[in-house]
Structures are given as C-alpha cells and as structure tokens.
C-alpha cells in the first residue's frame, strides 16, 4: 500500500510504536484510501461488526444467568426474562440481534453478488466471508437450541439427523454429536460450550476478512480498478466512518423497533413450550434466515439426496468466483447478468416462503422448481453469461465521466 510511513508525534509514541506498531496500524486504518463513490450498500460491513460485538457482549452477560441443563435451561430463560435486572432487554437484544445479524449479512452478500465483489483479486475475501456465514449459521442454530423449548429440541433433532444420512458412518456420527442415543443433556451442554466458542472464531475470521480486504482495497459500485490514493479515493476516516455511523444509526433504530415493539415476531410461539421428546410439533420450521435451505432440503424426496443438495446449495457459493468468469465486475455494465441477479433474488425469496409452508401439493412443486433454478443460476447461467454476454463499456475512472463533461 502506498501510504506515507507514519511517524508518531510524541517521544513515547515513537518508543512504543518501534516495539509494537499499533499506532502505525491505526494510522493505516484511518488513512486507508477508499473509493469515493461507495454507496450505502457498502455500510453493512460496519453494521455487521456492530452486530457481532453486540451479540458477544449480550451473550457473555446472558451466560452469567443461563443454566445449560435439560431440567433447568427452560426455567433459567424465564428467570432471565422475569427476575434478572434488564434480563428481558438483554435476551431480546440477543435473540433479535441474531435476526438483524442475518438481515445485514444477506444484504452484504447480495451487494457482493450485484457489484461482483467476489471476483479477482478478491476471491479470498469472499471465501472468508462464506466461512463466516457458515459459522454464523452453526452458531445461530446452537443458540436456538439453548432455551430448550419444543422448537429448540426438535430443530436440534432434525438438524443433527441430517448427518445420519451419511452412508455407513452416519449413525455413529449422530450418536457422537448427541453424546447419547437422542438429543439430551449431553447435547445441550456441548451446544452451549460451542455456542460460546464459535463467535470468537467468527471474530478471528472477521480480522482475516478485513485484512484480506485491505490488500486490494474496496471494490466500488462501478467495479473498476482504481489508483490508490488518487482523486478517486477518500481517506477512510472521517469520510467513511461518518457514513457508516449514519447507516448504523438507521439500522439500530430498526433493531430497537423489533426489540421494544415486537420482540417475538421473528420467533416461534412453540418455543415457549418446554421441550418434550415424546411429541413433535405439527409444523417444524427453522428461524426465517435458514428457510431457503430448509426448502431445498424438503424438496428432494430422498433423504441422502436432500442432505447433499442442502450442503451443495451453500458450498456452491464458495466456487462462485470461478463459476462467473466475466471480467466486468459490476452488474451496472452487465445488462443480462443484472436481470438474472434479480431473478436469483426472487428465487431465494420464493424458497424462503416455501420453507415456511407445509411440504405438500403446489408448495412442494414450486419449491422444487425454485431449487432447480437456484442451481441452474450458478451452474448454467453464470458460466454461459461469462462468455456470451455483451457488456457495456466501463469508465476509466470514478471521476473521469464527471470531469470530462
């Protein structure tokens, strides 16, 4: 990177920085040249950092009151809600925070899809992001099990049983995951342990994600390479920090709207019934953010096939930089891709809706078509577009089209 070498202004600062260059790091973060045309879709990185911090802080204090035992978990949640000072607030921030985290991450991912941020030279950033997304799903799933309500128990049963579809060793794996012959106390305690661990692994990946980002620098809405620093860039601080803060403010207002006015609207009432291993709720649904994948799982009339397709739908995203070989990043200059992007978006929403509906009749048929299209988009449409699409001319610089007229 072509920034000036930072020299601390005080003698102590210089002494310290020579031994641990933290001041150089913070100077780099502040001066970091950022494309000046970043729009509000680029503010979700900052929002996501806030979400992770918020989940970790509220999670740690909830862990001081929660008891991971099948006899006490459900009641300890009620204890948090009724007795612990501000326990209701902390828990509602944590449970709605998970939803807000996923909302932000989906916007972040679709922004990347639209503007081609996953393309060379940013493949590693994308892959790290997908690893974060995968860990987020695992963390959220295990967190949902902890209250030990009906949805917790049966969600855990269904998801852990996915592994029983593996030929030969499937049953040993599920027994190992459970620590018994069904979802029970050993399962709950290990889920609590891992639910506490994974956010810190996410944090580590986030550091790598940002590190990898700072090597090539940000992509931008017109998706062109820019010289840094130049008239096309602004320093991260104060230009981007203030824009990120403003977006965060709006986001937090919406977040607070959920927490204070409808804290249970994104949850499922069945989870306020204590877990009962003898009765399965008539309609099991995962949290909203996992519904599209659930729809894919259910659309296959075969156990192993469904599980394979479910995992394939996530892992196919890792290969995205090599499936879409178009040199033009931004969809603004890709007239065909632009339309397929929106079709994919609609397709994912349709899958999400079908995941919430019973798997029968017309719903099942639509879910199957949407599942097929999901894979067609990545495996057929993108590779073909890469070679046949006639892209529009891209500008040479961010300032150029403006300054020349």
């Amino acid at each position, binding site marked *: 990177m072509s920034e000036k070498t930072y020299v601390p202004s005080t003698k102590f600062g210089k002494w310290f920085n020579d031994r641990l260059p933290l001041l150089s790091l913070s100077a780099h973060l502040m001066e970091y040249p950022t494309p000046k045309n970043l729009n509000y879709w680029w503010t979700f990185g900052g929002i996501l950092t806030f979400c992770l911090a918020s989940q970790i802080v509220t999670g740690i204090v909830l862990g001081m009151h929660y008891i991971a035992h099948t006899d006490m978990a459900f009641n300890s949640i009620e204890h948090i809600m009724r007795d612990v000072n501000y326990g209701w607030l902390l828990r509602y921030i944590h449970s709605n925070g998970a939803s807000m985290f996923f909302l932000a991450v989906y916007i972040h991912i679709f922004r990347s899809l639209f503007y081609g941020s996953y393309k060379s030279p940013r493949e590693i950033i994308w892959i790290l992001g997908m690893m974060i997304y995968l860990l987020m799903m695992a963390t959220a799933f295990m967190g949902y099990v902890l209250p030990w309500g009906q949805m917790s128990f049966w969600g855990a049963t269904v998801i852990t049983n996915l592994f029983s579809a593996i030929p030969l060793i499937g049953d040993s794996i599920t027994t*190992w995951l459970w620590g018994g012959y*069904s979802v029970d106390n*050993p399962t709950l305690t290990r889920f609590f342990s891992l639910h506490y661990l994974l956010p810190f692994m996410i944090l580590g990946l986030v550091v790598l994600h940002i590190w990898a980002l700072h090597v090539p620098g940000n992509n931008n809405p017109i998706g062109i390479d820019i010289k840094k620093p130049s008239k096309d860039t602004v320093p991260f601080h104060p230009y981007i920090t203030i824009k990120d803060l403003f977006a965060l403010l709006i986001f937090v207002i919406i977040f607070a709207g959920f927490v204070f006015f409808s804290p249970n609207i994104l949850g499922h009432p069945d989870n306020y019934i204590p877990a009962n291993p*003898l009765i*399965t709720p008539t309609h099991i649904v995962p949290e909203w953010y996992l519904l599209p994948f659930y729809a894919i799982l259910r659309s296959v009339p075969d*156990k192993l096939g469904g599980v394979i397709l479910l995992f394939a739908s996530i892992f196919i995203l890792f290969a995205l930089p090599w499936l879409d070989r178009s040199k033009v990043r931004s969809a603004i200059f890709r007239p065909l891709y632009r339309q397929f992007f929106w079709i994919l978006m609609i397709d994912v929403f349709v899958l999400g809706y079908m995941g919430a509906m019973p798997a029968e009749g017309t719903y099942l048929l639509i879910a199957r078509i949407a599942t097929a299209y999901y894979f067609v988009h990545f495996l057929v449409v993108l590779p073909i577009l890469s070679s046949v699409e006639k892209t529009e001319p891209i500008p040479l610089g961010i300032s150029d089209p403006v300054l020349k007229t």
Partner: protein
Amino acid sequence: MDEKPKKSKRDFLFTASYTLGAVGIGATIWPLIDQMNPDTSVKALATTEVDLTQIEPGNSITVLWRGKPVFIKRRTQSEIEEAESVNLTELPHPEKDQDRVKKKEWLVMLGVCTHLGCVPLSDKGEYNGWFCPCHGSHYDTSGRIRKGPAPTNMEIPKYEFVNNNTIKIG
C-alpha cells in the same frame, strides 16, 4: 540437480520422527474426540420394562427408552391382516410383517421417523399407520415406510417378552 539424492540415515530419522509425532498427536486428540461419545451413565440406562395389561386392542402407548420414544401398539385383527397382505414388491424397504413382530398382536418399534428423527403421529396417513408431520412420511400398520422421504422402515428395538404381560426393551 536432476539426480535423486540417495536416501540417507537422516531421511530415515526424519520419517521416523514425523511418524511418531503423528501417532502422538493422534493419541492426544482421541480423548478430546471420544469424550463426546455416550458416557457410561448414558449407556447404563439401556433397558426398560413395560407392563402391557392396560393396553386395549387398537390402542398404543409410548414409552421412553434411551431418550427415544418406543411405540407399543396392540394391533386389531384387521390391522394385522392389512400388514400381512401387502405385496413386498410395493415396499421401498421390503420386510415381512412377521419379521417385525414377536407376537402378531404386539408391534414394538422405535417411534422415530427414519428421515430426520421426528415422532410420527399414530393412526394417521394414507396407510392407516403413522404419519410424520415434519416432512410427510407415511408408514403402514407394520411401521413400514410407504410414501415420503424416509429411507427405511421404523426400527425395531431389541426386546423380549419377560412374561405374557411384560416386555423388556433393550
């Protein structure tokens, strides 16, 4: 440069050290992995005795064994006949009814859908047996899968009749 260097005593020492190191790491990791398997207190709860006297024909009870529901169904004559008359070629997982019961009247099986582990509802579905509400698997009066995503019939646990009115599961 292209010539392969001769295997020396040093190469042997490297290979031996790496191998021993790998075995050592494996032996260290194994306890960390195996601690997640069922512990002795879980394994100790392996058998359950059930009294059958209260169950009327056509009714069933559900008992908990190893944390899983076990259906004990006292089948009616028509249900037995229905189960026995099925042509095996129609079944996704062909098993004779007589191989699934010890006494025709009593069907004892794990009440766990072989798809993803939900508990099926009794006397529901298109085959008068069980229906799993989670992902729509239909089972017949012998607990055999007939329609839906479940790959196999519901499992029959190990059990025996202690006397005419009592069974021991496990």
